[in-house]
């Protein structure tokens, strides 16, 4: 005997999940989308990816060092931000802009607000929007690096805009959308690749399906009701397959720090994202609304959490009185 016994509060055993394991799962889930991006836009995609990831990890390290915080680059959350940022950029993006994106995401949006779990908006999306406003031309240049001479066409979403004549020629068929097509940002190319990753995250219980389903479902519904020339004639399939809804619904709107923690709150989040996305797409000046929709719901998250505190088990249906 003679050992010193450790005293601690129960529980004395813990599950296997770690923050790092979750973040690695997200990276794994994004591999199909990365492969799809490389397939359609060529190896330049990997250079963009490397730039954003290195930039994010480096800035995480430097800012934590400067703020005398514990260095947390080993939790892989900066890697996830880097990968997501790359997937939200056009394939032709100058690498230096991609690198600036890493700075904006990690330093301005994440670390200045307290680091992991404290940021009020999705770092990758916030960075994308700031880059878009700062370097609009480069951020909306959809030229495919593999075919630089091809005329850069509007993204498929531009044809959805109210008042536009829908020209059948512009609209690729659904199957092509689903399997993959070379238009849009790096991560938007293939719905199939994104779904594989999204289902993997649900299977691994990294995300709950509530936000993706309510996001996609409400966008489809809204698109169906208001997307056509007369009500209830909108092309809802086109609405959800084109653009960034799938990427946004599975990978961006489910970001832990910036989405509600209760099921009820998550439904509100998903529906809010779906409706705002559709409104921007159909009625506003920007062709795509996913980023703004998610960012808007991000800033509403604390309020959603505050108003969706569930009733205690057994206390449903009445306001419980507590000491």
């Amino acid at each position, binding site marked *: *005997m003679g*050992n010193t*016994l*450790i*005293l*601690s*509060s*129960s*529980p*004395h*055993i*813990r*599950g296997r*999940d*770690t*923050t790092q*394991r*979750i973040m690695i799962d997200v990276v794994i889930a994004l591999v199909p989308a990365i492969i799809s991006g490389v397939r359609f836009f060529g190896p330049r995609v990997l250079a963009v990816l490397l730039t954003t990831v290195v930039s994010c990890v480096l800035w995480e390290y430097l800012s934590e060092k400067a703020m005398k915080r514990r260095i*947390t680059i080993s*939790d892989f*959350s900066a890697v996830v931000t880097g990968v997501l940022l790359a997937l939200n950029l056009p394939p032709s993006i100058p690498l230096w802009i991609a690198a600036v994106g890493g700075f904006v995401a990690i330093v301005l949006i994440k670390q200045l607000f307290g*680091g*992991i*779990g*404290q940021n009020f908006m999705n770092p990758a999306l916030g960075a994308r929007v700031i880059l878009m406003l700062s370097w609009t031309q480069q951020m909306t240049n959809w030229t495919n690096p593999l075919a630089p001479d091809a005329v850069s066409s509007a993204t498929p979403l531009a044809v959805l805009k109210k008042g536009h004549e829908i020209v059948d020629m512009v609209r690729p068929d659904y199957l092509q959308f689903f399997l993959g097509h070379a238009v849009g940002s790096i991560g938007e190319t293939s719905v199939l690749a994104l779904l594989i990753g999204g289902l993997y995250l649900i299977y691994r219980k990294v995300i*709950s399906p509530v936000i993706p389903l309510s996001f996609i479902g409400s966008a489809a519904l809204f698109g169906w009701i208001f997307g056509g020339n007369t009500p209830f004639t909108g092309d809802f399939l086109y609405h959800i397959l084109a653009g960034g809804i799938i990427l946004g619904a599975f990978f961006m709107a489910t970001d*832990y*720090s910036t*989405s509600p*923690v*209760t099921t009820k709150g998550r439904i509100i989040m998903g529906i809010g994202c779906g409706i705002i996305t559709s409104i921007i797409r159909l009625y506003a000046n920007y062709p795509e609304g996913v980023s703004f929709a998610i960012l808007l719901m991000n800033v509403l998250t604390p309020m959603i*959490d505050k108003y969706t*505190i*569930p*009733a*205690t*088990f*057994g*206390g*449903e249906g009445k306001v*419980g*009185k*507590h*000491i």
Partner: protein
Amino acid sequence: MIISKGVFKGGVAAPHRKNTAEFETIRMGVPEKVIIPMLQHIGAPCKPIVKKGDIVKVGQMIGQSEKYVSAPVHSSVSGTVTNVGSVVHSGGMYIEAVEIKTDGNQEIHESIKPPVYSSDSELLELIKQSGLVGLGGAGFPAHVKLAPQTDKNIDTLIVNGAECEPYITSDYREILENSWNVICGINILMDLLKVNNVLIGIEDNKPEAIKVLTELAATSEKINVVKLKSRYPQGAEKMLIYSITGRKVPPGKLPLDVGVVVMNVNSVSFIAEYVKTGMPLIKRRVTVDGPAVKNPSNVDVFIGTPIVDVFEFCGGLKTDVEKVLMGGPMMGVSQSSLDNPVLKHTNALLAFGPEFGKLPEESACIRCGKCVEACPMNLLPLYLNLNAIHENVDGLRKYKAMDCIECGSCSYVCPAKRHLVQSIRLGKALLRKKKV
């Protein structure tokens, strides 16, 4: 046998580790000394009624209280009182205790004889005098639970044999080894409570126990075994009642309020034994296990035996022991000293080496919501944690800290390894202080 239809929301798939399930109970001899604390239950502590130098015998009452919510304590041995004073209780606070040097004769006290009773109130008084408390781990005085309710209509007795904590097999062994006592105890309680519906809840990882009791209960339509899904914390009173009857106990209310009395299977069995012999609660079965125990066993131990003696009886501890628990790994209490005695509600003694001794370091909350999904009480542990850390009384009230049952599910699933339950406990203590 009935298969439970519902299962409570949340909880965790904790490991089972029922290593000792097939180990028949072995009796441990009389230790050199016993230390019998005056508080081995929820409620008011007892006052010692013996003094240093007194000769005591087995079953003799040595502590009692005038308060209603309390349970008397008895000597588990015969010998001489060597000290009456304060000791560190296994829960960490100081409490009065009687130390007895044993003489090894185990002479039984004159007062011990098979009890005779002719009314419910007499039986209830006997149960009170037996010192019985909830043997499943909570230690709530049995006579308080069983007292007649004038304003409540009790229609169901639930016998808790869920035993959802990892490692522990004390209830399981009781069902296998003393199955008749369980059924006899149920019959006594049915008469006392005037109920015609008894449901014995057992998790489906204990098929043998389900089989044994289903066969014994086959002759009675009033007694049924309910097969429960193995999911922690299935044995928590509110979760168990919901899984078995679909009734929800409202926050701040008791099982009585939904017409249910829940008794641990060991407690039920004890009542049957007590009615036969009149011997109060002086010993119990303890599961001794954990990676740092040489020979894991189920041991019949005299209450008050220092836990070091129990471990010695099981071949001793390995040298790398870092943590000793009274109770299971999810809700058990880590022990400051191996001299602490076995209590009435000690269902397990577990010893861990370095692999479980130290808890992982905390990192920042990533708001993944896993604690919310795991909380069987529907609370938001991450916000309770935040408000507890900042000692925000209003926030703790808003997020309903007092409804937490401290099951540990949130801490168990937390990927950031945050000490959620620990902080919520401190938050609850703060609220209790503010209330006064």
